[in-house]
């Protein structure tokens, strides 16, 4: 069984457990592409992915490539008690990024100093709502890559 099906590495971070609608997002992420689901009928983007367009009820969708740029919409710094792989890095940051292409599409992620750096690798003083960020990808397990975010002006 691949690790993405197990949903967790043995002692590492939680891996995404994709559902049918979310699977394409993770397949593109594994190739280092940040794409969002859009309606093939009215072209409206939507997140999280779902089978039907809430605007025009079309069941046809396409996955549009994004610029990978955005701004921090909000952020938190979790402190223990946390699951062990997260407690080790706490306090770390979790951010919500609104995409430059469509600010209504917001993704949860982490602000890091480099793609493979720890979740606490950015000075908390640099966390600011509105800060421009750019996507990068890190490999959490074999074949499983997730988006990370870097400050556009480090």
């Amino acid at each position, binding site marked *: 069984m691949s690790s993405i099906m197990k*949903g*967790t590495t043995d002692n590492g*971070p*939680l*891996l*995404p*457990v*994709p*559902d049918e*609608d*979310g699977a394409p997002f*993770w397949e593109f992420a594994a190739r280092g592409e940040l794409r969002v689901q859009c309606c093939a009928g009215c072209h409206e983007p939507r*997140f*999280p992915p779902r089978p039907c367009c*809430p605007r025009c009820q079309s069941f046809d969708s396409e996955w549009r490539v994004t610029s990978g740029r955005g701004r921090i*919409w*909000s*952020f*938190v*710094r*979790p*402190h223990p*008690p*946390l*699951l062990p792989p*997260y407690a080790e*890095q706490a*306090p*770390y940051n*979790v951010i*919500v990024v609104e995409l430059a292409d469509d600010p*209504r*599409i*917001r*993704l*949860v*992620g*982490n602000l890091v100093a480099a793609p493979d750096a720890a*979740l606490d690798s950015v000075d908390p003083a640099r966390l600011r*709502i509105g800060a421009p960020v750019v996507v990068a990808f890190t490999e*959490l397990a074999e074949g499983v890559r*997730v988006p990370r975010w870097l400050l556009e002006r480090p």
Partner: protein
Amino acid sequence: MAATLKDATAIVGIGQTPFARQLDASEKTLACRAIVAALDDAGIHPSEVDAFASYTMEETAEVEIAKAIGAGDVTFFSQVGYGGGGSCATIAHLALAVSTGQATVGVAWRSRKRGSGPRPWRNTRTQLPTPGQWTRPYGLLRPADEIAMLARRYMHEYGATRDHLFNVALACRNRANQNPAAMMYERPLTREMYMGSRWISEPLCLFDNCLETDGALACVVVSAQRARDCRHRPVYVHAAAQGLPSQHHGMVNYWTDDPLTGPSWTAARHLWKHADFGPQHVDVAQIYDAFTPLIPLSLEGYGFCRRGEGAAFSEGGALEIGGRLPINTAGGGLSEAYVHGFNLINEGVRQLRGSSTAQVPDATTCLVTAGEGVPTSALLLRS
């Protein structure tokens, strides 16, 4: 005239177990104790119970409760989803059943051993793929983290501060200090304690989070006509609502056009549309408080102030006894007990009976709300 829920039913019995970090009895036993106490409070024999309502998260099924307490033939039973969002809906479902003749004596309850039991977020095996796949890999693990994200944005947009959140925590603690049944009875809170406490998920600290409680509560609902023959002054279900807003996503409500407009807005529109009075006529409110930021968000949603003014509303002792809107007068989830909001319903009933330990003088109307941030529900009670 079309059928209406308005004042057609009443809560006539309330019951509860002690609240503690750890109780020995099982959830099933606690549930039965609370239900039997509520029926005794109403003066109704368990054999007359023919309706049940609880939460989908409730672990004791109706069949177990019914046979244990000696219920008669049951003709209505329902469960409501979304954790604490379902509290008021349990009463609403019973009110619908009783007012439409599907049942005559309804019992709603919640029993939970959250104090001694596991923390749900620790479960890595059964993470829900939607929306967990979009949040948990990044370490957004707990309800506190999810709400902290909205809280940070709210503070940024409207200039709300930690002092505003402290106002909420303090009002609940002050009321718990008056309530011998509260877990935080005789344990005062100061601003120094609040500001110096450990973080859970910045910007939320320890005292922004609800308690971890073992305990159970129950209510009995009958028709307004029957209510007149019960032991206590009837507390009428004046209006009830559930709320699942368009494009809502639950706790991680980051994916709508306006994440700070939560389910309370939807529930409130329905509630006020069916009520004979408005927010300005609410004497006392029991507002769901798993986390302090839910209070300003709910104050806005239910129309006690305008958008963005919820935090400022808490200034000058507004939430205390004698203030503009006394809230959570038994201590709430923050300081009495956290039993998925059911203790707020029982306290609403006590206020309108005139028997609260922090009684609002001459209170005749009470708003009770369920969890904001999840598909929710609310009740307007009146005496």
